[in-house]
């Protein structure tokens, strides 16, 4: 207890949970009371954001170096394992707290307009509030198990919200896929926790990170294995190779959900985890290289797939995977602040892009609904020229596009540049990092290209909705454009948070996070770049972004594009990209099918039906019946028979008695 507003930290998750309870009750008993749902759903989030701001301001006033930990009750007192239900406030969780509640509030507000006519309005907000509760538990937890509760909880909410429109099988399947793929990652997280407890005797963040350098030793086997398992958890939650395949399918959920869970907050949990465990990752240079390498590969790989997707949300989904890859390059390199910085700016511009696409889909959907057309409202081939009808959305999404492409002075430029510079700097110590830097740069080129392509096909060129539907296209109501404007401003100027010294800034976020990142940074080799090199890197990055944008603008011809219905199938390499490198098919063939075969043919038909059902359950029944049959043969119904046996028995007893005496 500090006697300041920091003590109120429990209120933030409690408010979100209150929202879940109230909206859940309404969903069960009064699903039509939409006004009440709106007040509860958005209100608790706004209140949680206010609490978050108060807490962070009070925490900054305290000027504490160490985290402020609140232990509420003893959760798992099992011998040497003492786990408390505890929350902690430190510089890193403060940043996450503000991002989650701030961006979350805006997206809740947007949802009011987007989901207005949905019958599951109350259920939707109940899930959304529950998600915020678990996300806050995740980022505020003071030990691994509490964090794991949040980790699992957000996965549950993700599942519930991806399959929100569960009466269509494809949506329910997408939810299940996300849940099952995440299980693999969660297994990694669990194993990592076991190793951490085994090696350090504690699961509290403070104890573990304090003891790790002495108990585990730099480059040791245990720390390498445990960090790799932790990273396996991250690849599941944060959609990295090889577990990224669930995220594109997660786009089956409502668009604000994609913005909140599958772009801005939940998927960044892995980045948060690595940044939180920066000491452990710094002790395991191999794991750090793996994190950065997987991140770089994912960034490039996902970007190539995004080049050829037609579904506006799928492009953004692959873009999210790609940007998460950047964050992992950052945190894997040891540039924790850069990774978190990109997490924050990405939350701004990707939430904006998703909400913008939601606004587009909303308009398209209404236009098609009004004209009773059954075209795909998310296919970019059916759009075109929408800037004339949705000027606000178009303008704001252009801001986000410039931010994600890395055009100065928009927010994404600073964060992406910092990550690439950090990777390049490590390259001077270990050359492999230059490869990661190259991947990142190539991905930056593709990012600029596919984002420009998305904007070009959606908002520019001729209209392909058909004249009748075009008349019905119009901008969304203010409750939807309002959050877009706020996010637009944040995307444009978010870079202020961490303007590097090179640009005359004070790298505020970097210094703010220092108490958290210092222990890890102290273990890593120093890598400094001269100002001349840094300016060269900036020039290269800007040139790459400009090449991507101008290249897309020049190469792509929206005039030549046909609506989805009459569009020809892609050929050659384009088809490979359109089909996502056939990764889903490969997984299906090499993992899913053998697993299903083993489950069905061996585990079900042999083990379950054969051994357990056949020998065990039915076998016992058959044995009892055989014994019963034998006994029933004695019951002939003939009294003479009974008497004869009776006499034999009496004689036997008599003989036994007399022979004994």
């Amino acid at each position, binding site marked *: 207890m500090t006697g300041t507003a920091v003590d109120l930290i429990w209120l933030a998750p409690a408010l979100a949970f209150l929202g879940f309870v109230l909206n859940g009750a309404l969903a069960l008993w009064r699903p039509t009371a939409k006004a009440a749902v709106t007040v509860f759903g958005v209100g608790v989030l706004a209140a949680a954001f206010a609490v978050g701001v108060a807490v962070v301001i009070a925490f900054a006033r305290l000027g504490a170096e160490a985290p402020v930990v609140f232990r509420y009750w003893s959760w798992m007192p099992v011998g040497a394992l003492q786990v408390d239900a505890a929350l902690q406030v430190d510089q890193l969780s403060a940043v996450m707290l503000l991002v989650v509640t701030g961006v979350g509030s805006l997206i809740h507000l947007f949802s009011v307009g987007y989901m207005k006519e949905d019958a599951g309005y109350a259920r939707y907000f109940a899930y959304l509030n529950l998600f915020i509760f678990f996300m806050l538990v995740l980022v505020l937890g003071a030990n691994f198990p509490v964090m794991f509760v949040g980790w699992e909880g957000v996965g549950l909410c993700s599942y519930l919200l991806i399959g929100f429109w569960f009466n269509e099988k494809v949506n329910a399947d997408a939810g299940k896929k996300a849940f099952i793929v995440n299980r693999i990652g969660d297994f990694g997280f669990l194993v990592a926790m076991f190793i951490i407890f085994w090696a350090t005797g504690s699961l509290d963040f403070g104890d573990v990170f304090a003891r790790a350098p002495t108990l585990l030793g730099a480059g040791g086997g245990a720390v390498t294995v445990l960090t790799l398992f932790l990273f396996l958890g991250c690849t599941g939650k944060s959609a990295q190779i090889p577990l990224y395949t669930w995220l594109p399918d997660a786009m089956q959920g409502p668009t604000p959900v994609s913005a909140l869970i599958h772009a801005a907050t939940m998927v960044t949990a892995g980045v948060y985890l690595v940044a939180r465990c920066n000491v452990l990752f710094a002790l395991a240079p191999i794991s750090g290289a793996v994190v950065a390498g997987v991140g770089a590969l994912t960034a490039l790989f996902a970007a190539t797939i995004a080049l050829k997707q037609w579904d506006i949300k799928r492009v953004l989904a692959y873009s999210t995977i790609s940007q998460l890859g950047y964050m992992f390059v950052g945190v894997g390199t040891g540039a924790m602040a850069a990774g978190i910085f990109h997490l924050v700016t990405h939350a701004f511009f990707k939430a904006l892009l998703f909400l913008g696409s939601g606004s587009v889909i909303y308009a398209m959907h209404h236009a098609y609904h009004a004209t009773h057309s059954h075209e795909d409202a998310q296919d970019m081939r059916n759009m075109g020229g929408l800037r004339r009808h949705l000027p606000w959305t178009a303008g704001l999404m252009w801001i986000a596009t410039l931010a994600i492409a890395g055009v100065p002075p928009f927010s994404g430029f600073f964060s992406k540049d910092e990550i690439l510079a950090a990777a390049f700097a490590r390259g001077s110590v270990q050359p492999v990092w230059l490869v990661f830097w190259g991947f990142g740069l190539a991905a930056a080129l593709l990012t600029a290209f596919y984002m420009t392509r998305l904007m070009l096909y959606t908002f520019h060129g001729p209209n392909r909705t058909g004249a009748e539907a075009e008349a019905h296209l119009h901008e969304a109501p203010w409750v939807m454009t309002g959050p877009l404007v706020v996010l637009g401003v944040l995307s444009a100027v978010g870079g202020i948070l961490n303007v590097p010294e090179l640009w005359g800034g004070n790298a505020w976020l970097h210094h703010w996070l220092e108490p958290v990142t210092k222990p890890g940074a102290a273990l890593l080799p120093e890598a400094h770049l001269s100002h001349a090199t840094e300016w060269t890197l900036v020039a290269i990055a800007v040139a790459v972004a400009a090449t991507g944008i101008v290249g897309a603008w020049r190469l792509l011809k929206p005039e030549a594009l046909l609506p989805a219905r009459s569009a020809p199938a892609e050929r050659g390499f384009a088809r490979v990209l359109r089909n996502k490198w056939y990764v889903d098919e490969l997984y299906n063939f090499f993992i899913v099918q053998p697993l299903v075969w083993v489950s069905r043919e061996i585990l079900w038909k042999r083990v379950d039906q054969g051994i357990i059902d056949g020998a065990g359950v039915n076998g016992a029944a058959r044995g009892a019946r055989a014994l019963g049959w034998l006994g029933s043969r004695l019951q002939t119904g003939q*009294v003479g028979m009974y008497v004869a046996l009776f006499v034999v028995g009496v004689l036997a007893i008599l003989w036994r008695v007399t022979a004994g005496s």
Partner: protein
Amino acid sequence: MLLGPALVISAVLFTLGVAGVLLRRNAIVIFMCVELMLNAVNLTFVALAQRLGVGGQVFVFFVMAVAAAEAAVGLAIILAVYRHKQTVNLQNINILKG
């Protein structure tokens, strides 16, 4: 004192009763053979009573009382079975077959 001959007669009577129960098919006859076995036992009690005291003779009265009750119930059952099946041949009465 005739104890030996009395026990021999009683044993013969009992064996006749057992043989009758085992070999005959008519319920009435079996019933009578059961009575024969009871009375064979009674004869043993009485014969041994002169040596072992009056307890055996008291027991005989109990056996006769029980045998009377048994005769009443048994004959009633046989009568009921006969009304139902038109026979008292035990080979034809086997509905308790397992």
